[in-house]
């Protein structure tokens, strides 16, 4: 058995009046825990225990004058007697076993009524009990409204069958003989049946409404949190109401209200400076950053809660924000590059080719790599379909021959590609969806009011696609000249990036090499590409007999997201027919 005696309180302080005892027989005390408040002629002091254990007997009572050295109480199973006592200047963790400071009553106010009860441990026990039996609520009963209030008149119902209620949301106004109180729900769910009517007298415990399958309620916090909201009587009323309101409005996270307050119905704030409850501020814990740093973060679009502070105590500086923003940016940049590269490069691990013979490794940087990335992306994002057709260009060939000297004069070469440019430009005017792009993010189709056609050129650097602008506004000779110039530039490595941008459609001609057809890959973000293969003389069944005709195989690959198969067939047929009736073109060109 260990005794706790009143320790030295300070210079020239020999005694004090015991204004409040914070323990009772049976309480568990630990060293450092405040056990009483003593009023000396200088100040009111909180006296911490220097012993730990279960309080056995208390030798003093409130109102007594107590002298330094006098025995205050004894403990059983005492442990950890502290070497020396401490006075009021304590550093105590806020979760003491006994009553926390905030739960204390002002001295001079009535002492907790029944003297031998244990104010210290009672709430804890009660809490434990409540915690042990979480209730599953399928109905809402009128909770306790406060001391001596057993009933009230229902002045206003705020719910009806079908209403969604959530915990803490006010569901009715009750007029007691003291005031009008707003009663918040302690349950969440959808109201099934309302068992009361406006104007009725309602008793504590009476069922107000039932729920369609109620949600389990953590009783411990619920009780305090959902104590009726007294909004017209008491300075705090408005505050309480405010809390209920923001809860109901779902603006902030709910917070349990003090379970250790002497009365369950006192979750009140004279001037509540719980910032989580201030309108417009969501409840996040105060961030360790000076105000200007927080504003800076906002300005640069950084969520400061994501930033790790490098200062003492995790304090976040402006530099931390900058570093974070930089990291974000570069991460974003890498991410932007990553998918195509991943799309192309991410493939199963390569075998050791050298096992089977000699190999040479050559850098893939430059055009090859760009092409690889670009095509892989196009292939990955665009659902490709290729439509094949054939155009009889026997007549066109004559036209070409006629125009050839003219083109040559002008410094160009009259090729099938040059003619195809003219044909496609005309076709794109008739079928604008082939001259479009898809903006998936905005969910929009971008129709271009201009016709710029790229022509794939085979160079020793790889595939390049110079773009000829406003094709529809140029005649065939002009197109032939421009095409020749651009192709030469491409081969001579003189082409500028600008000259390869802004295309709306692409033509690729492999006819110079051979082949009967192929499936070109759409040049993203365009939606279609026309492939030309080698034209050859073929027997065509015309007017009851086979005739030798010059046939050009056409392959149109298109983005099936935007273009339907039938449209593609029509578009390609239109092109084929245009090739077949060059007369049309000469009229237009």
């Amino acid at each position: 058995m260990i005794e706790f005696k009143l320790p030295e309180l300070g210079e020239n302080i020999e005694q004090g009046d015991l204004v409040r005892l914070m323990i009772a027989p049976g309480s568990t005390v630990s060293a450092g825990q405040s056990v009483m408040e003593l009023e000396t002629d200088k100040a009111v002091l909180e006296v911490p225990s220097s012993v730990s254990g279960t309080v056995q007997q208390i030798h003093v009572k409130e109102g007594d004058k107590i002298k330094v050295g006098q025995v205050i109480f004894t403990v059983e199973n005492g442990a950890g007697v502290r070497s020396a006592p401490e006075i009021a200047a304590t550093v105590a963790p806020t979760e003491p076993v006994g009553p926390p400071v905030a739960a204390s009553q002002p001295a001079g106010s009535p002492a907790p009524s029944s003297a031998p009860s244990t104010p210290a441990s009672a709430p804890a026990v009660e809490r434990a009990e409540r915690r042990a039996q979480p209730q599953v609520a399928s109905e809402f009963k009128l909770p306790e409204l406060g001391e001596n209030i057993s009933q009230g008149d229902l002045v206003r119902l705020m719910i009806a069958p079908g209403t969604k209620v959530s915990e803490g949301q006010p569901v009715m106004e009750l007029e007691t003989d003291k005031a009008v109180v707003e009663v918040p729900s302690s349950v969440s769910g959808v109201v099934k049946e309302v068992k009361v009517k406006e104007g009725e007298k309602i008793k504590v415990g009476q069922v107000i409404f039932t729920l369609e399958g109620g949600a389990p309620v953590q009783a411990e916090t619920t009780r305090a949190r959902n104590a009726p909201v007294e909004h017209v009587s008491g300075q705090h009323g408005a505050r309480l109401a405010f809390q209920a309101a923001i809860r109901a409005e779902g603006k902030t996270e709910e917070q349990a209200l003090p379970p250790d307050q002497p009365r369950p119905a006192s979750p009140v704030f004279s001037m509540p400076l719980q910032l989580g409850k201030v309108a417009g501020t969501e409840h996040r814990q105060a961030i360790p950053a000076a105000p200007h740093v927080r504003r800076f973060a906002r300005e640069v679009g950084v969520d400061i809660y994501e930033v790790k502070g490098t200062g003492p105590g995790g304090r976040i500086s402006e530099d931390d924000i900058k570093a974070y923003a930089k990291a974000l940016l570069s991460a974003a940049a890498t991410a932007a590059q990553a998918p195509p590269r991943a799309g192309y490069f991410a493939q199963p691990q390569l075998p050791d080719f050298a096992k089977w013979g000699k190999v040479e490794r050559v850098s893939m940087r430059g055009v090859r790599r760009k092409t690889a990335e670009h095509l892989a992306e196009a292939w990955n994002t665009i659902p490709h379909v290729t439509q094949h057709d054939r155009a009889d260009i026997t007549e066109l060939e004559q036209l070409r021959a006629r125009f050839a000297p003219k083109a040559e004069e002008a410094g160009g070469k009259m090729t099938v590609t040059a003619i195809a440019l003219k044909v496609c430009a005309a076709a794109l005017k008739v079928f604008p969806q082939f001259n479009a792009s898809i903006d998936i993010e905005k969910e929009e189709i971008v129709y271009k009011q201009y016709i710029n056609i790229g022509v794939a050129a085979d160079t020793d650097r790889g595939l390049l696609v110079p773009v000829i602008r406003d094709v529809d506004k140029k005649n065939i000779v002009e197109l032939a000249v421009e095409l020749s110039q651009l192709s030469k530039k491409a081969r001579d490595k003189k082409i500028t990036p600008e000259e390869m941008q802004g295309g709306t459609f692409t033509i690729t001609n492999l006819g110079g090499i051979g082949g009967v057809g192929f499936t070109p890959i759409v040049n993203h973000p365009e939606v279609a590409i026309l492939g030309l293969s080698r034209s050859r003389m073929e027997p065509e069944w015309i007017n009851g007999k086979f005739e030798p005709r010059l046939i050009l195989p056409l392959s149109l690959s298109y983005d099936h997201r935007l273009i339907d198969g039938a449209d593609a067939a029509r578009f390609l047929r239109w092109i084929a027919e245009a090739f077949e009736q060059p007369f049309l073109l000469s009229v237009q060109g």
Partner: protein
Amino acid sequence: MSETTNLNIAVVGGGPGGYAAAFLAADLGMTVTLIDPEVNPGGVCLYRGCIPSKALLHVAKLVEESHQAKDWGIEFAAPKINLARLRSWKEGVVKKLTGGLGILSKQRKVRYVQGRAEFENSTTLRVTKTDGAEEVLSFDRIIIATGSRPAIVPSLKLDTPRMMDSTGALNLEDIPGSLLVVGGGYIGLELGSVYAALGTRVTVVEMLSGLLPGADRDLVLPLHKRLEKMFEGILLNTTVAAVQDEGTGIRATFEGADVGVSEAKPHEKVFDRVLVSVGRKPNSEIAGLEKTQVQVGQRGFIQVNKQLQTDDLAVYAIGDVVGEPMLAHKAMHEGRTAVEAIAGHKVAFEPNAIPAVVFTDPEVAWCGLTETQAQNENREIKVAKFPWAASGRAITLDRPEGMTKLLIDPQTERVLGVGIVGVGAGELIAEGVLAVEMAALARDVAMTIHPHPTLSETVMESAEVFFGTSTDIYRPKRG
């Protein structure tokens, strides 16, 4: 921001929120109209709130100190109170400040319209001017700053000048022999203190178990003890069930567990006057508001986001009308934030600490985290307290009952909250706010040299207490 500075904005309500917003808007180049029924800007705070109450509390403190001076060997005769003079001094203070705001409006070319505004739509106001004229004005943005008014308890409504709200009490019509203050919040205690100092027998009734509900109990205790001496009675856990006008006074009937247990806790009593200070209600019942998209929450507060913007994109709202805490400095900060948001700045109302001050004697002040809140949130904190009995300055003032405490995060040792009770606590708390906002560590506070001998040292010393090294307190080592 150049493209936004020519915005035309209206501010409805000329309180601290309203005029702070209007002035900043003008400074940013906007065209500003400020509308309020009073002759000059000021609102509740200047006309019938913070300012007149603080003027009277200053006088109350002087009277109290003159009594205490006896202990120091100086004896004054009982004060003779010239009520008319006191009133006109208080009114002079109000005039000086509100007049000053009027001049500041003019200098900034804010158009001040004396009248009441109602909404025609989101961007149009109909203003009924005090001189009777009407004007319909259109704006790009409107800021609602209509504030709040005293809450009324239906059962405490009596048609007699003996029943007062805070506005009536500040009018100081007479010095009643006895006064019942209903509501032990800060307004009731401040005004109760004024009347007590002037000689009125004051009784405070509080429904809950302590004064200043919500404030940490250890901060309230010293105030409670002093008020017990100043007031005739402090009735806790008590409500006023009924009031009755008896012509010569008001009979109040009390209810509560302790009522009737002793002579000091009577069932009923007659008072010369009654002050009802049970809270404040937001002025959100603005005519025509339903013609906008503005949403009013169930408790009457206008709903806003962190930019103080309502559900109507053209309408912002600030101050008491948007929610707690209903304090002038919160209103002003919100007003400025709203204007910056309107000007296109990326801002938000997101303080880490808003100070609260109760201007009683001793004063009670706190900011940031409170112990009560920490318990509610189950947050582990450490509390370092410095009792003013160990402060030289407090002893020279003969006011050793104060206490300063820091709430500290045990992991980072960051100062999360500060609580102070004692003379001048309202001034001292500013350092606490700065510490919390700057994310100061207890060590920062402890290592900052504070002037000696001042009460401000208690802030530094409480940080030292945290480390067990306070100069003025002996604290034996643990273990």
